[in-house]
């Protein structure tokens, strides 16, 4: 039940006009949100939209609608909500596409907007011509058809997957000016369903000498990485479904190795081979890439775990403020180590912080949606969010991270993100 608003509720709890998160449970309050650039969303003080329909009786109430469709698509009025693509000029099959995080709500990423990182394109795999082979330090090498895997008992993980290279522009000297998703959108969240890998490995019979598993995909890069057997036995699955339907081709159809909390590249798509070994293979994607060179000249290797991170999705760059008002700050937080314990928000560049409301469900290694009421008086402000996970790990400020890692690490950037808002309501990415 929502309680009535009383004037005390509008007393700030931290600098810059942050209000108590309990306000979100009160009635009688209308919260504004920053609007997407070019948005058609009506807002009281937004420029008036040209009205072409009789709003009390629009044409679609007076004629039969469209027929049924076998597979639904988003409204044509949402055509701007798409992945943005960054690909290699000489090899368009190499690159990424970013999830438009700033345009989405809740915690589930629609499958068609899940980020992509392909090293050499999306293979069009006929599942009848695809096999999964388990071999190496096992009693009996085994080959599985896709149909046979569909007949095993299954499990679901509702988890995020984040590319180790996500947010890498954070290492740049100057703050990059791009919509949130085109900078931080190599992270998405889905329900992945499939066969616990431990079941399949047990059936092959694990040699006690085995400590690593080399996983390989059936794409044109034949991408391979080495993974610790213990973690794979713990909670990895051979996923066949994403968000209830068979995995999309660009996300690994027909089989994807899904490892909760581990960086994206380890969640091998188009999985074809698992080799148990007593040492890592030292593949290109665990030596040349996905390692972080430190100022000392040494590099961090096998940095599988995604550390806690949070992002304010609204207001964010290229969105518009509607003047002094009470806003709902919205964002996402996650950690590869478990649940998000707390998200704090600052409206004064980190001088003072207040705790945001975490929207249920709060799940381990899953996106957590946070919300925070904020009374913006129209003067310049700097918004930040800071996640703490259940292990006590606190998302670092950017300058702390850069001091520790230098600027040549490229991977695993999880520094606090700051949005500067000027008196005209223009939002930009700032280092603060």
């Amino acid at each position, binding site marked *: 039940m929502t309680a009535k608003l009383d004037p005390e509720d509008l007393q700030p709890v931290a600098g810059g006009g942050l209000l108590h998160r309990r306000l979100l449970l009160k009635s009688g309050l209308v919260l504004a949100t920053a609007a997407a650039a070019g948005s058609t969303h009506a807002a009281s003080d937004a420029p008036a939209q040209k009205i072409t329909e009789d709003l009390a009786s629009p044409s679609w109430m007076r004629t039969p609608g469209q027929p049924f469709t076998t597979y639904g698509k988003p409204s044509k009025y949402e055509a701007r909500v798409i992945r943005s693509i960054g690909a290699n000029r000489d090899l368009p099959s190499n690159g990424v596409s970013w999830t438009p995080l700033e345009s989405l709500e809740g915690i589930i990423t629609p499958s068609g907007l899940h980020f992509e990182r392909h090293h050499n394109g999306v293979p069009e795999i006929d599942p009848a011509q695809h096999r999964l082979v388990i071999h190496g330090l096992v009693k009996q090498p085994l080959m599985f058809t896709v149909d046979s895997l569909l007949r095993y008992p299954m499990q679901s993980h509702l988890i995020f997957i984040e590319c180790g290279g996500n947010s890498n522009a954070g290492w740049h000297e100057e703050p990059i000016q791009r919509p949130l998703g085109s900078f931080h959108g190599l992270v998405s969240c889905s329900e992945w369903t499939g066969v616990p890998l431990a*079941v399949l490995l047990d059936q092959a019979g694990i040699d006690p000498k085995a400590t690593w598993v080399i996983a390989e995909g059936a794409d044109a890069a034949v991408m391979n990485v080495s993974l610790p057997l213990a973690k794979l036995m713990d909670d990895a699955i051979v996923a066949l479904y994403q968000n209830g339907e068979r995995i999309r081709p660009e996300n690994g159809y027909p089989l994807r190795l899904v490892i909760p909390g581990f960086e994206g590249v380890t969640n091998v798509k188009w999985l074809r*081979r698992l080799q148990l070994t007593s040492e890592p*293979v030292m593949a290109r994607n665990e030596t*040349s890439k996905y390692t972080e060179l430190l100022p000392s000249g040494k590099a961090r290797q096998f940095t599988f775990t995604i550390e806690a991170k949070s992002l304010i999705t609204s207001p964010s760059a290229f969105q518009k403020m509607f003047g002094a008002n009470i806003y709902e700050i919205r964002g996402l937080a996650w950690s590869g180590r478990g649940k998000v314990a707390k998200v704090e928000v600052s409206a004064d560049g980190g001088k003072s912080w207040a705790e945001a409301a975490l929207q249920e469900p709060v799940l381990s290694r899953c996106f957590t949606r946070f919300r925070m009421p904020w009374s913006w008086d129209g003067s310049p402000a700097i918004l930040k969010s800071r996640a703490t996970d259940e292990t006590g790990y606190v998302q670092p400020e950017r300058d702390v991270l850069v001091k520790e890692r230098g600027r040549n690490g490229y991977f695993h950037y999880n520094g606090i993100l700051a949005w500067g808002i000027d008196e005209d309501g223009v939002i930009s990415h700032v280092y603060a």
Partner: protein
Amino acid sequence: MSMRDRGPFFTALAAAAVVVAVGAGAQAAGERKAPHLGTPMSAEEVAKWDLTIFPDGRGLPPGKGTAKEGRVIYENQCAHCHGDDGRGATAEELVADPQPLTEEAASKAIGPYWPYATTIFDFIRRSMPAGAPGSLSADEIYAVTAYLLAANKVIGDTDEMNAKTLAAVKMPNRDGFEWIDVKK
């Protein structure tokens, strides 16, 4: 697939599904009840699938090549994307002068950064040239690997690379990596 093919496993699977559904504690029991649907493979079959090349050279195929032969392959099949002499273009630089890894000069080209020479052979065999992966012969891969190692001044210009000599190459940055999420 007909119901008849499914016959032997269908009952076991249905029973397992029920056990899994009653809660997390029942999961282990459900796993034990999983059907066994993997087909055993012979060593010969496995060998056809196995593309792994380990740092000690296990998995390297027979063959050989030198930097001189490799330069021709590089110029014809790689330079368009990786630049003249491996100095980088639309794809990564592969060659850099020998240099310590400092904050100012942090080249991740093969010579300064890569810890194992076997990785070069392995990666080219599985992924390059990007437009036609898998198209080079073992001799050609040894040759272009020799070219890249020589251009990075890790081996001599006339050194032959084969399964034995490649595995014996010690990269300058062999000990430059600290394992974070796994103990050595």
